[in-house]
């Protein structure tokens, strides 16, 4: 009994209106009439009650015969053959042309009547005359099976009586008098709970929505609240949130700050000088192939500090007194000013080292947009983010670099299982690659690093060792966000933006 009470409390107003009218086998149409609710409202009430185990909605497919266009007309005005007969009965011979029946129906009527021997026809000159036979008079005097049938419609095919069947078959041969549609008919089948529930008296002393008035007047007291179906699905809302990749990068930035790194940056439109030459990458070097860049149409050349440029030039040509032979070629002072879109975040490191504000000891990181001449596909973007940085301090050596890499592995891969392998970067010596065993991804190449070459640091005015590193952040981002296609890091599909998970 408690269950029934609880159930009763949980009913929605629509259900409460429908419940008293429920009985075994009642159809949706009938309920619509008896409750005065709209079809959708009855349907929703029934579905909710079905979810609550009160009833089952039975759905039958029925073939329903109903009046078609001509049928409606004939029901109102009589069948053409009947109207024909009525116009000639009691007259001797009537000219067909004088009979008031639309032309389209005339031939049908004549055909029908002749078939039943209700009329005879006679030709006189150009004119056709008609007269009723005895059979015709008889037919005109009573309602035909067809006429009776029309009045019964709509009806279910399964309920056809033999006499209906005759009319039905006859009408089927004729144009647009009747139509047969397959219709879903819903009816109610009460469960045991439903049978009990339908006997309950429905109280009025019941609160659906709490109103300010009720609160003011205390009328909510001693009343029951309708209990909600709190498990029900509610409509989705799309509120604001950060873009998934940006949120990931925000988190990376926070980590670097927490690790004691200061952020550095540089311009998107860069010179060949800062992008590559200042990094001691020779202007002819084949490693520049992998940095295939986007060059600027106009202006072609930018400005650079001549004094720094001369020192970098000397480093390329003769080592700039660093104990290096240098690259031993003629440095092109015009080419170094060529403007391009930054290809690597290391350009920012070079600028930082050359800047007056650089602190020793210092740790810097940059999260910068870089651009490469690549076809955009599932693994390449035309612009992408690089996360790179430097650590500079007197007395730093490869051992510090190793511990820095381990710290990154812990911070970004939650692991202390790492391998440091020899690597190659044009601007570091020694160079190392960090492989870390990510708990879910397995062994991944997490970072590239090394100690900047003296030919790079000295011309920029730095005389302490500089550890440089870069982290493959895109891959971690894709993994963390569950993305397979790098293009989804920047997405212009609002549905995807809305459904992306929020990483923690």
């Amino acid at each position: 009994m408690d269950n029934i009470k609880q159930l009763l409390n949980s009913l929605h107003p629509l259900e409460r209106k429908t419940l008293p009218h429920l009985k075994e086998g009642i159809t949706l149409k009938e309920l619509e009439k008896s409750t005065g609710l709209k079809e959708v409202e009855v349907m929703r009430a029934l579905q909710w009650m079905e979810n609550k185990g009160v009833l089952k909605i039975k759905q039958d497919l029925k073939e329903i015969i109903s009046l078609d266009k001509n049928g409606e007309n004939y029901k109102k005005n009589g069948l053409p053959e009947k109207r024909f007969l009525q116009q000639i009965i009691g007259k001797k011979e009537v000219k067909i042309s004088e009979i008031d029946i639309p032309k389209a129906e005339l031939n049908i009527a004549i055909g029908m009547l002749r078939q039943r021997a209700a009329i005879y026809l006679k030709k006189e000159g150009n004119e056709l005359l008609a007269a009723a036979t005895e059979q015709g008079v008889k037919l005109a005097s009573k309602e035909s099976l067809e006429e009776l049938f029309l009045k019964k419609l709509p009806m279910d095919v399964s309920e056809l009586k033999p006499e209906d069947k005759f009319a039905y078959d006859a009408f089927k041969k004729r144009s647009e008098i009747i139509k047969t549609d397959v219709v879903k008919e819903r009816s109610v089948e009460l469960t045991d709970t439903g049978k009990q529930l339908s006997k309950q008296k429905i109280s009025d002393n019941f609160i659906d929505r709490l109103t300010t008035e009720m609160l003011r007047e205390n009328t909510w007291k001693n009343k029951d609240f309708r209990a909600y179906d709190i498990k029900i699905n509610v409509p989705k809302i799309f509120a604001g949130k950060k873009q998934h990749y940006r949120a990931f990068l925000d988190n990376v930035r926070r980590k670097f700050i927490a690790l004691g790194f200061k952020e550095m940056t540089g311009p998107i439109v860069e010179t060949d000088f800062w992008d590559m030459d200042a990094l001691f990458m020779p202007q002819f070097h084949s490693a520049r192939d992998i940095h295939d860049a986007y060059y600027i149409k106009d202006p072609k050349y930018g400005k650079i500090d001549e004094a720094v440029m001369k020192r970098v030039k000397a480093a390329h040509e003769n080592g700039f007194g660093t104990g290096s032979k240098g690259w031993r070629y003629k440095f092109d002072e015009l080419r170094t000013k060529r403007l391009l879109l930054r290809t690597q975040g290391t350009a920012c490191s070079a600028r930082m080292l050359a800047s007056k504000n650089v602190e020793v000891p210092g740790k810097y990181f940059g999260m910068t947009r870089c651009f490469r001449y690549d076809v955009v596909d599932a693994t390449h973007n035309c612009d992408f983010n690089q996360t790179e940085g430097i650590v500079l301090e007197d007395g730093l050596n490869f051992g510090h670099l190793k511990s820095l890499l381990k710290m990154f592995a812990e911070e970004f891969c939650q692991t202390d299982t790492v391998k440091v392998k020899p690597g190659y970067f044009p601007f570091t010596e020694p160079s190392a690659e960090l492989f870390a065993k990510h708990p879910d991804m397995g062994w991944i190449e997490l970072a590239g690093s090394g100690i900047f070459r003296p030919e790079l640091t000295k011309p920029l005015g730095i005389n302490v060792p500089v550890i440089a590193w870069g982290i493959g952040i895109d891959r971690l981002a894709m993994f963390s966000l569950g993305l397979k296609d790098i293009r989804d890091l920047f997405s212009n599909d609002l549905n995807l933006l809305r459904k992306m998970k929020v990483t923690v």
Partner: protein
Amino acid sequence: MPTITFSLNDLNQLVGKKLTKEKVSELLEHAKAEIESEEKGELTLSVGDTNLPYLWSAEGIARLFKGLLGVKKGLDKLKIEKSKDVVIVDKSVSSVRPYIAAFSVKGKKVDEYLLKQIIQLQEKFCHSYGMRRMKVAVGVYSYPKITFPVHYKATNPESVKFIPLGFKREMTQGEILEMHPTGMEYAWILKGCKNYPLLVDSKNAVLSFPPIINSDWSGKIESGDNELFFEATGTDKEAVQFAANIFAYAFAERGFKIYSVGVKYGAKTEQHPLPFNEKVKISADFVNSILGTKLKESELKSLLEKMRFGYEKGHALIPDYRRDIMHPVDVVEDVAIAYGYNKLPEFGMNTYTHGNTFPITKFLDKIRELLVGQGYQEAFSHILANKNLLYGQMNVEDFGTIEIANPMTETYSCVRTWILPQLMEILGKSKNAEYPQKIFEEGLVTMKKDLKDYSRVALVTAHTKADFTEVKQVLDFIMDNLQIKYVIEDTVHNSFIPGRVGRVIVNGKAVAYIGEMHPSVLSNFGLGVPAAAFELNLSDLFETLRVSDIRKS
């Protein structure tokens, strides 16, 4: 990054040990290389260091492995047999392709496999180190066919005819550049040259047309040949000398005898292969200062010899097949590799440093937070865009755009100058997403006038009732929360409906446009609902706040 293929069997024979694939994989770390794939006993490697072309062949890798495994340690020196063969360099090449180096090898039969290996090293070397043959190109010939001396000269492109490799008829050099597939591929190297390089023997038979193609006559080496002539031509003397060393060492590694060839420039003759015989100062102290190790001189010597350097009185002797050593630090890396990166000591950072970001970044993050709080979904777009999107679809004129000289596709052919068009594009592509659609993006735009990057935020709301009031409420919310006073002035902007667009002024500086999107713009993006938007210059706003009193609050 070059990739090379050779058989594991061959490598094992060269090393003189039976190595498993796993062992090879482990040793390859010392060569900054890794196995990409294995098929029918053939390994394909990618080699990371573009400065060490000697590692782009099984011979070079075997030479390093011998040192690592202790099969043969220390400096390897080429044994060169003197010969009387000479290449005479004519002055005419000096303005085209001035340098050549040459040598010959004898004593072993070339089989199909070795032929493939030679071609592989030739291709990788000329492509990568040789900068697509421009700086250095290498030719290999059947030695017995050549009558010395050989002449290296430059001739009129139409004056000489010969049958190039891969063709059946005689062609002039000019025709080769126009019609031969290889000629067409490398024609750019000789663009603008009056005369083209040519290598002929003393009977005037053409050996090759460097750096384009060999002649069919002598330039086709075949399985069974056991005497080969090698030459490298180029624009850089050292690079040409280096090429001869790389190849001579590779042949020697296989047991060929190397015979010198004299290269005669005027009165001077150089015998090639010409060893560099270079050394670099190195000390245990210097190495220890970089690696944090405590190596003694004897240990340093042993580690260097593992990597096939020599060591002599405070100097590392550099192999002739290496040109990557410019500074002692380059040797230090080899010592570190021989020692083992993972065995090297580790040290924690010495000093504490204070981490931070830029003041404007914090400001930008606050703006983003406020917008998210207003129910706006953040977007993050490419910085590359195209002028049709930025201006054509937005009904405005170009306001100074950085265009790419060599775009890959039209879609990404310039740097964005504002963000709103990209947001409109998102709306246009997301018509099946539920409305209201409210999005924003904060990011950089770059202006042609000063080539500088500016932080902007653009925002758009689109739904049946989107209007000016709605976006002004958002702007109000931001400004109120940041306690910034602003005024809106009437303005004209063709992306917006006339009379429903304004400029936002803070401290006398115009920092934003705000308005209802013009129906023609909506239609350009295929949108069937109204939209209202603003784009705010956050760099300018931040700047004006820094100099005004408002920021103190």
